[in-house]
């Protein structure tokens, strides 16, 4: 059960700083387009900034950069939201954990904050630590009453399975709005929009990206993803809903790679929660950008027909 006391703490903002994610922008643009569009439909104006860069999580955890390098990068990105006096909304679990953890660390360590601020001052910025970082799925859950009112394309007859993603749950042991071991808010959202939730065994397993293992230890990564996909196929959902573009990319692309390598036939469309909400709220087809999806395109078309374009 989502912790309602924490959900209530999320403000209902009029504007929010929309933090763009690399994977969402460059591999699955539908996440970005739908994220902003559905927030707009729900009465929250997303504010973007061209100066916002990657959160820096990837280069840090790929060990190409030490935390000394990524800490100021995090502070810089957060300071962009602070300049506008807004909270931040992210679409990616990686961004969420990275901004949250490092932000939290700086807020509780004055010395580090001062040294980070020295570097930011050189470029005419400063970091206070006043803003909060929310995941877009958390915001959707906060605005679920508005979503229920504004559903244009009810997801009747759509069987959806969920995948939360490790960096939201593991990283959010104490900061996620839901229980890190058995979350259920995405299920609630799906049912709210008229869909059916399909349980499957490997629900809380890692997608298998393993951060850098998809590049360095591909065998391990594919083996783990295959376990997950086997379990998903057993339950046979129409859609697999994720809330992290990185999981999205892994689960979507590895299906094709496994089909190619091993002659299997995994065909489950993967959708980000922003795309699903966008679909239900009646965001135009172009903005959903399903053309960027690789696996289960036929099935996705069927879902489209059922929902009614």
């Amino acid at each position, binding site marked *: 059960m989502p912790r309602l006391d924490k959900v209530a703490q999320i403000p209902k903002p009029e504007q929010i700083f929309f933090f*763009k994610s*690399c*994977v969402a*922008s*460059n*591999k699955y*643009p*539908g996440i970005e*387009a739908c994220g902003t569009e559905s927030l707009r439909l729900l009465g929250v104006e997303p504010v973007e900034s*061209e*100066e*916002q*860069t*990657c959160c820096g999580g*990837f*280069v*840090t*955890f*790929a*060990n*190409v*950069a*030490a*935390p*000394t*390098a990524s800490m*100021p*990068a995090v502070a*810089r990105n957060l300071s962009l939201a602070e300049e506008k006096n807004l909270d931040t909304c992210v679409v990616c679990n990686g961004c969420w954990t990275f901004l949250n953890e490092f932000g939290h*660390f700086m807020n509780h*360590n004055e010395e580090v904050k001062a040294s980070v601020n020295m*570097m930011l001052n050189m*470029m005419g910025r400063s970091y206070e630590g006043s803003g909060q970082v929310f995941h877009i799925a958390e915001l959707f859950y906060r605005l679920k009453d508005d979503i229920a009112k504004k559903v244009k394309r009810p997801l009747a007859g759509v069987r959806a399975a969920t995948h939360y993603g*490790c*960096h939201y*749950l*593991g990283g959010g*042991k104490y900061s996620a709005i839901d229980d890190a071991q058995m979350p259920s808010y995405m299920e609630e959202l799906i049912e709210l929009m008229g869909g059916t939730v399909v349980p499957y065994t490997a629900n809380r*397993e890692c997608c*298998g990206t*393993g*951060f*850098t293992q998809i*590049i*360095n*230890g591909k*065998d391990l990564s594919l*083996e*783990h993803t295959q*376990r997950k996909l086997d379990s998903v196929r057993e339950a046979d959902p129409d859609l697999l809903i994720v809330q992290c573009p990185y999981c999205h990319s892994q689960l979507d*692309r590895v299906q*094709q*790679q496994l089909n190619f390598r091993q002659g299997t036939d995994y065909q489950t469309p993967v959708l980000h929660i922003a795309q699903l909400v966008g679909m239900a709220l009646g965001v135009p087809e*172009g*903005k*959903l*950008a399903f*053309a*960027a999806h*690789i696996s289960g395109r036929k099935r996705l078309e069927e879902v489209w027909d059922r929902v009614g374009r």
Partner: protein
Amino acid sequence: MLEKVKDWSDEFYESFKPIAMGFVNEAEKCLQCGKCTGQCPAAAVTPSYNPRKIIRDLVFGNVKRVLSSVELWQCFFCSGCYSVCPMDINFPFFVFMFRLAAMNEGYGWEDVKQLEGYAEKSYLKDGITVSTFERNPYVLDTVGDIGKIRAEAGLPPERKVSARGVAEINMISDLSGMTAFMKQIGGVELLDCKSCTDEQAKRCKRKPMPSKVGKVKTHYRFYNYGEPGGKKHAQAG
């Protein structure tokens, strides 16, 4: 193999704690209960990988074994161990810090080498780590031009970070020494399995054998916590 038990160094762990910006803490609280390994996605597919054993070696000061192991580089960074840990030990941060330490000792550069391109060619150049570049021909055929899809979705065809933004992260990178760090990695090609000698192939258990990565003299890593796993090795054995 008989291993002589050395006096573990209390000072190492104690002095390590505050230095790592407070990220690494409380490993001494480990109960060795194995809850971390039980839920670990990497351990489920890798016989020798075991977070519990790495924590034990760390607390008892067997640093050399941790640093020279292949296992250190097999973590998935999923944070699942942290989320179930009864003592709130943040193991992924241990791995992160110890990978830095291992690189300082000359291990694991061949892994980092493969990722360095993301930082140098994408992050520092464009401000975005993952580019639109696609290697997989199937994906290229199916998806086609991402720019076109972006335009259809009402987004600018290319996501651009402003020149000022790129300059700012470049300065952060320069000032914090990240650029210099990456320059160490770049440059020299890795030896791969096709070009290595029989001698090298005999020693190599899984990874391509590096001679040198960039300006760094690298060392061989071993499976210090068990046998290498995976389907490939099951067949080879």
